[in-house]
């Protein structure tokens, strides 16, 4: 008797199918998404970068809006990927039981988690690219170094998407997402060298911000596209983001697998 081997989809194909589900859902509500992932950051660019920024004559040799722009891209991708993986996934994990049903197929929890993280990462990167493209009409996006910079934004989005999914697996309800948002994400957007340089902070707080991923994303993107960055700083920032994402990913896979498989 000939044994017929079961044809199993590859790990990557499973991940892609999970990604695609979220993409299809996004496509259906793209207009609503456009408002908060693209329009909102553009308004911030106008109000803070051009409006308030016009009163600041010199920001270490550059215009305030140019100083702010790389940070705005990092912040935007952080908010979008973090909210996508928290709010976007909580229902699927809990009362809609989307994941519990997905694992009844040949998908395994790890594929679902990686697929969802990659989706949130792409959405974060996509929003940063959209903002940058529109801002290019105002003369931003003036360097080819933005191409590698978007790869850094992708990595940084991956960190926040993973962080979001991990937090999603810990909270008991939608309201629970408010604590990490107000306690971690919003402070990061304010103090990680975004609106003003880190040097303005008291030194204790300044060193503390180096524990936060957004500091490293902003330093990388601003360094690459505006101020220049030397190789060892570049490597350290990058290593921090890669290290953090792999630790967070392992933790997330562990937690969610235990929730899905009793």
């Amino acid at each position, binding site marked *: 008797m000939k044994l017929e081997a*079961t044809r*199993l989809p590859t790990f990557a194909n499973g991940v892609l199918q999970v990604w695609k589900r979220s993409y299809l859902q996004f496509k259906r509500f793209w207009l609503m998404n456009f408002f908060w992932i693209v329009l909102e950051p553009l308004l911030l660019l106008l109000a803070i970068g051009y409006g308030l920024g016009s009163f600041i004559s010199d920001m270490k040799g550059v215009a305030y809006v140019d100083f702010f722009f790389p940070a705005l891209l990092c912040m935007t991708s952080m908010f979008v990927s973090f909210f996508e993986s928290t709010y976007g996934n909580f229902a699927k994990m809990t009362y809609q039981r989307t994941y519990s*049903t997905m694992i009844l197929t*040949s998908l395994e929890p790890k594929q679902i988690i990686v697929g969802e993280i990659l989706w949130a990462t792409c959405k974060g990167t996509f929003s940063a690219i959209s903002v940058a493209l529109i801002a290019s009409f105002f003369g931003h996006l003036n360097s080819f170094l933005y191409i590698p910079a978007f790869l850094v934004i992708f990595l940084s989005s991956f960190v926040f998407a993973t962080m979001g999914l991990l937090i999603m697996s810990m909270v008991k309800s939608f309201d629970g997402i408010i604590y990490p948002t107000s306690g971690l994400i919003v402070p990061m957007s304010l103090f990680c060298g975004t609106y003003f340089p880190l040097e303005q902070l008291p030194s204790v707080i300044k060193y503390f911000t180096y524990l936060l991923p957004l500091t490293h994303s902003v330093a990388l993107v601003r360094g690459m596209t505006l101020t220049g960055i030397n190789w060892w700083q570049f490597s350290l920032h990058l290593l921090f983001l890669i290290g953090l994402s792999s630790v967070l990913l392992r933790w997330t896979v562990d937690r969610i697998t235990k929730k899905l498989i009793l």
Partner: protein
Amino acid sequence: MRKLIVEAKGLTKKFADQVVVKDVHLEVFQGECFGILGPNGAGKSTLMRMMYGSATTNEGELYVVGLNAKTNIREIKARIGVLPQDEALDREFTVRENLHLYGSYHGVDRDVAVHRTEDLLKLMRLEDLGDQFVNVLSSAMKRRLGMARAMINQPELLLLDEPTAGLDPQARFWVWDFLENVKTEMGTVILGTHFMEEAEKICDRIAIMDRGQVLAVGEPQALIRQHIGVQVVEFQISKHELQYYLARLNAQQFHYQVIGDSQINVHLESSETAQKVISIVQSQKATIRQPTLSDVFLRLAGHHLRDEPL
């Protein structure tokens, strides 16, 4: 020798200190509809979850479609279809899209999945609802879509956990009828249910479960004959008469069960003895009926009743 589809040897599952499945031995053969029958909390769902990989096993061995559930769960999942207790359809998508998506998770080629979707929609009488979002479906339709979804990968084994729970009688009959056909056409069905009538009607063999343990396995009629007999005389009495009647029944060596304080079910091994029981009880409220799986279950599980002489 028929092919073994599921084989469980000494299967045990614990949550913290609580043992929910205890030393279960089971064999399910190809082409049969196998029922796992028991009340809520008996461990049926957990046992089925272990078979489809949504629960791990603590002890024992489990083989599904010839593969080890501990090491080859992805292969197993690719070859079986599952309808979980809560079908949890994807409410962001339409009926048709639900089936396409599920096919994609299984790695079924898009064209094949589209083709199978149309076939399954017809089979489940959902062809007019293909483009509706799932939240407009009635619970019976949702259940049918859940079954269609479980069949998108053309499974050789179908695991259905309470497929008729919460359905009205007509919808329930439709499911039963459907399962009769599926069984002959497709292969093996494992059905978890707390519904005795369902198990008796459509299962070839059943395992009766309670408190995590399998109490008996066999064909429904054989189990009834073995544990109850051919007839049951059921009669109502008042509480203070109970001891009197039990003494009389014991004297004649009848098997019986006391339900609550005011009902006695006497199990008869031959239909000729029915009159003898009637003459003992001399009650207006005595009825003679066919025994059912409920009688077997009550006898084996002994819930709220004393089935031994006091």
